C-alpha cells in the first residue's frame, strides 16, 4: 500500500540565514557606535554623486566610511575615495544585489569603533535588493527627476522596504517638467508617511536638511543605546 505523504512544519523565513547575518551585523554596528545607511536605486540615478557629496560634507565632522557594490569595476569606490573617506568595493560578479554576508566580509579588518557613519551603496537595481536586510539603521531609496514621477508606483516593493526617499538631480527638474506633486503623491501612495528629501548633489540644493536629519537620527540612536545601557 502506498504511504500517504505527511506535512512536516518548518515555518521559517527562506532568507533566515541572511537575516541571522544581518542581525549580527546590526549588533556589531550598535557595539561600535556605527550608524549604517544603505542606498538603493536604479543605475544612473546619481547614487554615487550623492554619496560623494555626503561623505565629503559629513567627513569634516564625523568619521565616515563606505562600501560600494557593483557587478564589475571599482570605478565607484575610486570616485568615492576622492572624499578621503575609507571606501571598499564589493564586486559581486553576476549577483544583482548585496547580501548581508558580503557586507560582513567587506568589513574585515575595519575597526568599527573608529567609524561614525557607514554608507553601503547597493548594486544599481530597484528590484532585487528589496529582499535582503543588510543590518543597516536606515535604507534610502533614491531616484532622479529624469526617471519619471511614477517610478514609486512601478517599484512598490523597494519603496516599501526603504525608510526614506531621496529625489535627486533636482537641478534638472525644470528641464524635464518634473511633476513634483505627482511624485510626492505616488511615494505617499506606496509608502504612507515616508520621509522625502529633494536635492541636487551637483548644486548642493537640499543637501543640508538631509544631512541634519541624518546626524539627528544617529544622535537619537546613540542616546537610545546609552539609555538602554543605563537600565
Amino acid at each position, binding site marked *: 500500500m502506498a504511504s500517504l505523504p505527511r506535512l512536516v512544519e518548518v515555518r521559517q523565513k527562506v532568507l533566515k540565514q541572511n537575516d541571522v547575518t544581518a542581525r549580527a551585523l546590526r549588533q556589531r554596528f550598535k557595539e561600535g557606535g556605527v550608524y549604517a545607511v544603505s542606498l538603493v536605486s536604479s543605475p544612473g540615478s546619481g547614487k554615487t554623486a550623492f554619496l560623494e557629496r555626503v561623505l565629503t560634507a559629513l567627513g569634516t565632522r564625523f568619521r565616515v566610511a563606505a562600501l560600494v557594490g557593483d557587478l564589475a569595476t571599482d570605478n565607484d569606490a575610486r570616485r568615492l575615495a576622492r572624499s578621503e573617506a575609507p571606501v571598499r568595493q564589493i564586486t559581486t560578479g553576476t549577483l544583482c544585489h548585496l547580501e548581508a554576508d558580503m557586507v560582513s566580509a567587506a568589513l574585515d579588518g575595519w575597526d568599527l569603533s573608529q567609524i561614525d557613519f557607514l554608507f553601503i551603496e547597493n548594486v544599481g537595481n530597484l528590484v532585487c535588493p528589496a529582499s535582503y536586510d543588510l543590518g543597516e539603521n536606515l535604507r534610502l531609496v533614491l531616484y532622479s527627476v529624469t526617471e519619471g514621477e511614477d517610478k514609486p508606483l512601478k517599484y512598490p516593493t523597494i519603496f516599501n*522596504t526603504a525608510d526614506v526617499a531621496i529625489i535627486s538631480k533636482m537641478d534638472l527638474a525644470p528641464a524635464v517638467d518634473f511633476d513634483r506633486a505627482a511624485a510626492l503623491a505616488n511615494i505617499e501612495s506606496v509608502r504612507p508617511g515616508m520621509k522625502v528629501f529633494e536635492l541636487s548633489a551637483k548644486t548642493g540644493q537640499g543637501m543640508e536638511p538631509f544631512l541634519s536629519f541624518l546626524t539627528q537620527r544617529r544622535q537619537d540612536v546613540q542616546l537610545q543605546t546609552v539609555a538602554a545601557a543605563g537600565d
Partner: protein
Amino acid sequence: MHEMSIVLSLLEAAEEKACELSLGEVVAIHLQVGPLAGVVPECLQSAFEMASAGTRWEKCRLAIETTSLIGRCPKCCLDRAIASINQICCADCGTPIHDIVGGQELNLVALEVCDDGVPSTTG
C-alpha cells in the same frame, strides 16, 4: 533577477531541515509568498527546476501559496485588505496604512514527506 539566489537559499534550508529531522523522501516543499516579498512565483518555479536538476530535489514539487496584502487600518481599527500593491491604503475606507501585517512573506512553511522512501502512487 534574484529568484535563483532565493531558491538556492531555500534548498539549503530544506536540506538542513531534512537532515536535522532525518526525513525520508521530500515530495514537496511548501512556500508562502506575499505580493510584497519581491519575488515572482513563476520565476521561483523556473529557478527551482533549474537548481534541483540532478539533485535529491529533482522530483520534488514546489508548492507556492500566495498570501494577501493585509494592513492595520488606523480608522477602522481592524486588520483590513490593502487596496493594491501600490496603493497602501484600506480597501474599505481608503485611509493610508502604515502597519502592514500580511503580504511580505517569503516563508518555508513545510516539507511534505513520504516516510517509507517510496513515492506515493495511485493504485
